[in-house]
């Protein structure tokens, strides 16, 4: 019985230590070079590891590099796959269509930022209002676009929630309902995105994905 208790205790300790290593991402592990390498070339990431993480075959994973914007801070990469959902729509021509749904995980939105500004984005109540003010006052932005974007930001801010995540880089926040992990470290910030429906383990997958992507160069 004593032996059994010892083995069980050891087993629990092993599991908990495994879990905690997944939940922690040391500041020393994060640098902009690693993040840039993935955003520039997502094909360099092991598809097998991505597929294993989301329980799919690597042949089912599509890679997409969103480099449409000239601003680095708007760029992202996606690893996506069909999720079995279907949506029926009627086209304007009257055709009935069935559209297949997708899930994805990814990384992007790299930018240089101070720790204080990063913190303000997620903790300050005035951050969204300041962004709306900036858009509406910027005369280079089309008026229709500014109005639409401001309305969207205002509506979206009612849904957005941020929770501080410990032991990830210097500072990190988990955002719902989009289920994304925003990480700050040594003057840069970036975001790990998950689109897995309403899965409760999105946050855990985001942390595991961060580890896979940041250790990508060492593979």
């Amino acid at each position, binding site marked *: 019985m004593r032996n059994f208790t010892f083995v069980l205790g050891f087993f629990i300790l092993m599991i908990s230590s495994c879990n905690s290593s997944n939940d922690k991402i040391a500041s020393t592990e994060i640098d*902009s070079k690693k993040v*840039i390498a993935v955003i*520039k070339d997502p094909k360099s990431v092991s598809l097998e590891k991505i597929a294993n993480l989301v329980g799919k075959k690597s042949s089912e994973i*599509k890679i*997409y590099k*969103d480099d*449409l*914007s*000239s*601003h*680095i801070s*708007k760029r*992202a990469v*996606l690893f*996506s*796959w*069909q999720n079995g*959902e279907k*949506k029926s*729509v*009627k*086209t*304007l*021509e009257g*055709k009935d*269509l069935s*559209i*297949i*749904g*997708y*899930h*994805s995980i*990814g990384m*992007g*939105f*790299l930018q*240089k930022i101070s720790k204080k500004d990063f913190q303000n984005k997620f903790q300050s109540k005035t951050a969204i209002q300041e962004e709306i003010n900036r858009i509406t006052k910027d005369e280079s*932005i*089309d008026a*229709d*676009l500014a109005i*639409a*974007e401001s309305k*969207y930001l205002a*509506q*979206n801010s009612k849904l957005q929630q941020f929770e501080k995540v410990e032991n990830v880089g210097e500072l990190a926040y988990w955002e719902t*309902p*989009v*289920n*994304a992990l925003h990480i700050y470290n040594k003057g*840069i910030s970036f*975001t790990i*995105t*998950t*689109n897995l429906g309403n899965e409760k383990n999105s946050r855990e997958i985001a942390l595991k994905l961060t580890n896979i992507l940041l250790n990508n160069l060492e593979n």
Partner: protein
Amino acid sequence: MRTILLFFLVLISTSMHAKKLIQATCEAGKGCTFEISELDASEYDVITGKPEGYHENLPENAIFVNTKLNGSWEQYVETGMTRSQLDEFYGGDGFTMIYPFNPYFQPVDGQWQVKIGTVTGDICYGQESNMFKSMLQGMSQSGNITFPKPFHARFLMNNPNVKWVKIRPDLYKADLGNQFINLKFQVQIINEKKIEGFFTATIVVPTKEPCVNEIPITYTCVKENEWEDPWEEFAEPNLEDDLLPINPKKDDLLPIEPGKPIKPKVPRLDQPDIPRIED
């Protein structure tokens, strides 16, 4: 009285401001990009053949979706999803922004060549050279082109009499003419470096069969303009830049005259205007 006047002014300006639609271009596994429609909502009724007022009366959250399914473009109106939800349905990350132009369908700036293809169709009433081909050559843009953002087909063939209509994110159509001569233009962005156009001219002479000419036009980018590498912002700083020159050049040294003490040419402030801090 002032309040009443203000109320009417706001009412008039609101009614004058035509409703625009939020457009999405969505692709399976990639998510969606969003932009504000160039046309007013009422103009969409004409393009899509919907009854008058259909698009004007769509709910405020409506999104006009363009999606490519099995190689063909389909359009529908989404009213049950937010921008973020729609993006996620198509596999995006849920982070959306409205682009000032549709980045998927924006030709690159650079050197472009225009090739006007062979005229097909009827030889109209014995004419030897095709006047429409000559006309197109005169109207078409070529050479070093910086496209307007957002791109519009009117830029390729600009004529005040031609009214261009954007049918889809990649497709534009225009119509010009009367009951005797009808000219139709169609321009499609194939990719950021290739645009295809099609021109159809129909001449109708009473008592004779209509004479139809078709002329294809291809625009090809042969050399893209160089652009700044956006990743430069994240490049490692060159530490050598911070160091002083080790071997100073002649110009860096102060002139030394024999017998005179070395004195740098620095203007001195005899009575500096700095307030003293007193205890």
